[in-house]
């Protein structure tokens, strides 16, 4: 199985997610440079966390026009699995690969802590190893995670079961996002963006006790295996 992790200027979780993919889940993993105009065939592309282009203008707004985004968007539109973590989620929104937008956190603070989450939909390539309504815990670290979508868009998200992860309740919600949303996917289920960092809680050496991010990646592997003959070489 092949995975690619995109590095933008200012990405800072690219090495973390590379390590998790390569060493824990044994993906054959490449780092993809933001200037690349072509990319290889992958089973999974990850847009990592960080502060691409210094978060200037809006988080993810400038990264969305990086050269590499053309082939990434093409890959996504052809059904390729794309995982956007934190800044990666913001880039997916700015690219219109996912609906909605991010505002600054409602408390105006950069929040870095563990959050309790609920799995809302496990019928996706990214969450099939969780149970529906399962309570999990993952760290967040962001200043612009206040997810917003208009009423019509929210209805569509609900009707299509695109809300995948929520903060457990208002108190656990670190940013004021609408309906406590922490992660959503597209209608086709191949693009997933979330504010929490699964790569920071996928091995016991780094997050003792809780490794609740592990199943994001094991779900992806399970999905690719079931899909069978389409594994990238």
């Amino acid at each position, binding site marked *: 199985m092949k995975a690619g992790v995109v590095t933008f200027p200012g990405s800072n979780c690219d090495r973390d997610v590379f390590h998790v993919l390569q060493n824990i889940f044994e993906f054959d993993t490449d780092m993809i440079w933001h200037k690349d105009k072509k990319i290889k065939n992958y089973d999974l592309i990850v847009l990592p966390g960080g502060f691409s282009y210094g978060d200037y*203008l*809006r988080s993810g*707004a*400038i990264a969305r*026009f990086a050269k590499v985004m053309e082939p990434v968007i093409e890959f996504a539109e052809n059904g390729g699995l794309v995982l956007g973590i934190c800044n990666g989620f913001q880039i997916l*929104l*700015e690219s219109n690969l996912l*609906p*909605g*937008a991010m*505002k*600054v*956190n*409602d*408390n*105006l603070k950069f929040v870095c802590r563990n959050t309790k989450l609920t799995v809302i939909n496990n019928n996706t390539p990214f969450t099939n190893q969780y149970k529906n309504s399962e309570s999990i815990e993952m760290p967040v670290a962001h200043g612009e995670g*206040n997810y*917003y*979508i*208009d009423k019509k868009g929210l209805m569509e998200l609900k009707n299509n079961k695109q809300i995948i992860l929520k903060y457990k309740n208002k108190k656990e919600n670190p940013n*004021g996002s609408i309906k406590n949303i922490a992660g959503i996917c597209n209608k086709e289920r191949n693009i997933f963006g979330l504010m929490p960092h699964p790569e920071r809680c996928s091995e016991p050496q780094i997050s003792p006790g809780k490794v609740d991010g592990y199943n994001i990646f094991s779900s992806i592997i399970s999905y690719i295996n079931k899909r069978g003959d389409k594994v990238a070489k």
Partner: protein
Amino acid sequence: MDWEVKIETKLKDGILDPQGKAVKTGLKSLGYDNVESVYVGKYLEIVLEDINKKNKAAKMVEEMCNKLLANPVIEDYSYKLKKMEG
């Protein structure tokens, strides 16, 4: 012809602006009880070179705003375009 562009972006009406809310609280605590609402936006100045017609420059500015400078999902923009002298 060169053009001076002044662009403002702000969150659309009805979308809660956390920064505006904080500034409002600050103004209220200074005693400005008449403050009903505050929105914090962004302001950009751009110089465009070598465009012969105003409507061409305007079209380019709108394109820039829609593509990058504002996020049409949550933000409105407005701009002023002025011919630069000399």
